[in-house]
């Protein structure tokens, strides 16, 4: 049977994958691997664990694809849920680790900007990522799904199993807490500078 595999819709590819069509699962994999990796990368902060957990997400999805039933939950939401659970387990297993190393690829990105500008921007980003990593898991999830994956509140709600209103309110509270933590970091940074001066 000849078919244009990459043009399959998620639903069709899922049905075929559930019947054991590995090529169809491969299509879904190609479609979502970068997004799932990116999400996990920001949650773990390093490439090695992000690759390991991404692999586990897709192996788990492959194992359970037969049981997947579309109850209004899109495939992407299902995959993000698996990723979220695996990252939560990872954090629990590594709970002794206080600092999450952030690989340089997140930070240094600018080719043509002035070094001073890049330095300030990187410092700002580093502070932001530190603050985000200190947030509770559900708040980190909201921020990453919104800004990295560009999900709407309704889509985030589908992933997290919450209503759109609940996501909106959680997002607002997260923003307020981020602002306070960010200001705190900036203030402590400037105080250190004054003390040194």
């Amino acid at each position, binding site marked *: 049977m000849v078919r244009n595999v990459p043009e399959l819709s998620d639903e069709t590819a899922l049905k075929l994958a559930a019947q054991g069509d*590995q*090529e169809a*699962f*491969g299509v879904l*994999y*190609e479609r979502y*691997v*970068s*997004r799932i*990796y*990116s999400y996990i*990368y*920001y949650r773990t902060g390093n*490439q090695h664990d*992000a*690759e390991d957990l*991404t*692999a586990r997400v*897709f*192996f788990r999805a*492959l194992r359970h694809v037969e049981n997947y039933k579309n109850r209004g939950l899109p495939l992407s939401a299902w995959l993000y849920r698996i990723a979220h659970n695996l990252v939560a387990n990872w954090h629990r297993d590594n709970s002794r680790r206080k600092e999450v190393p952030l690989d340089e*690829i*997140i930070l240094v*990105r600018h080719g043509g900007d002035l070094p001073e500008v890049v330095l300030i*921007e990187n410092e*700002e*980003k580093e502070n*932001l*990522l530190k603050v985000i990593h200190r947030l509770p898991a559900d708040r980190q999830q909201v*921020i*990453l799904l919104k*800004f*990295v*994956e560009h999900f709407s509140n309704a889509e985030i709600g589908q992933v997290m199993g919450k209503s759109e209103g609940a996501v909106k309110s959680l997002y607002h509270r997260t*923003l*307020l807490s*981020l*602002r306070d933590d*960010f200001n705190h970091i900036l203030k402590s940074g400037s105080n250190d500078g004054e003390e040194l001066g």
Partner: protein
Amino acid sequence: MAKNSGRDENKKMENTQVSDLQAIEQIMVSSLQPVNPRPEFVEGLHQRLIDPMSPTVRFTRRYSSQFILLILATLLSGVIFFITASRVIISLIREFKLTNPL
């Protein structure tokens, strides 16, 4: 009068809060960019998913031939060691028999 100034202050605070949050959002928009996985990782995982029996790591011909040479050298040294060791043991037994004929 006092009521009005209170209202103004509240409004000012609200505006500051909104602009603060907008600034945080702006930083996040510029900072949180998607991170792409390594192409080798994507390809390797694809292979592992659709064909679990396929090797997860492929070596270049140069590495493969070096690996084969290493295995051959190990086998050869093993054989030489075995022959030498057995000859030493045989000569030791002979020596022992000559010195203690009973």
